[in-house]
């Protein structure tokens, strides 16, 4: 298997996923893990595609549908592959009045604690006049919850509300 990371971004409209994946299916490609999300009115796709042939062939397969849908296309050959999941053991939730630097401050302190971010979702909600930033992070670290809480506690002075909780994944 030779995986490529296919990135597609463009103005959201119904039918993007169906048309893109149909073109890949007809081209004989296999899909792996993917993240597809509407961000700020755009639709974004990051998808592992088994590019059995060449990068050029995959690009030629997807370019017509991308052009038709107004999507910008990017391809990267990648190392790694499927079945490399890591299970997060901590979750960090953040919210506060939106301002520059929240993500950098929070993730900077996490990085100092050896925290490996596996997933990060963020959104700006509230209203135009009073925007609120909400972020949830899931990741893995050997550090204790006390260490993380102490590190992130430094943000209280900045009126950023941060809550750390351990994730005990239930296997049953």
């Amino acid at each position, binding site marked *: 298997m030779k995986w490529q990371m296919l990135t597609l971004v463009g103005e959201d409209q119904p039918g993007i996923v169906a048309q893109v994946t149909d073109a890949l299916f007809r081209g004989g490609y296999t899909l792996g893990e993917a993240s597809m999300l509407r961000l700020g009115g755009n639709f974004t796709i990051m998808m592992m595609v088994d590019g059995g042939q060449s990068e050029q062939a995959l690009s030629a397969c997807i370019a017509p549908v991308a052009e038709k849908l107004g999507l910008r296309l990017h391809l990267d050959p990648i190392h790694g592959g499927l079945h490399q999941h890591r299970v997060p053991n901590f979750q960090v939730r953040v919210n506060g009045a939106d301002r520059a630097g929240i993500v950098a401050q929070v993730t900077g302190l996490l990085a100092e604690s050896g925290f490996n971010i596996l997933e990060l979702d963020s959104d700006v*909600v509230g209203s135009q006049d009073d925007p609120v930033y909400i972020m949830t992070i899931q990741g893995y670290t050997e550090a204790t919850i006390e260490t993380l809480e102490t590190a992130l506690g430094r943000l209280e002075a900045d009126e950023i509300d941060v809550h750390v909780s351990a994730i005990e994944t239930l296997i*049953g």
Partner: protein
Amino acid sequence: MAVLDILKLPDPRLKEVSQEVERFDDELLAFIDDLEETRQAGPAAVGIAAPQVGRLQRIVIIDCSTTRKPVPNHGRLVLVNPEITEWDGFELGREGCLSVPDYTGNVIRAERIKMHALTPEGEPREFEMEGYEARALQHEVDHLDGMLFIDRLVSRRTDLFQRKVYQKGGKKRK
């Protein structure tokens, strides 16, 4: 005693509804020993249900006494014909399953439950469970009804998730 084979997705038997146990005999006890040995042989499972080894009967084992951070629990429980009678509250948590290798995801479960079941000898028992133990029991009882946690997955961006952020944040603030 023996370690039994775990059925894995997409085995159709995992989607079947299991039958109530009617015979409480030595054969049942021997099977329960095997089921427990199978649970312990795998990757740190807090629970297992009989249909996961292909026996479509309403038998589960849970043991929440060995979590990394201690949680309220009743020790190791072997529960025959378990039935949940009351559900209260809801909570998001991450689950995986011996029958669904290499995947974990978020599932909403009741925070507190009341349930009754029979012991392996057929004696009635009642329990009130909360949090992680309640989650484990709901996960296992789902197996008896042909449901897997992947049938209950919720989006990472689920609304419930964000409301909880506000609640917990609000309480913590000094």
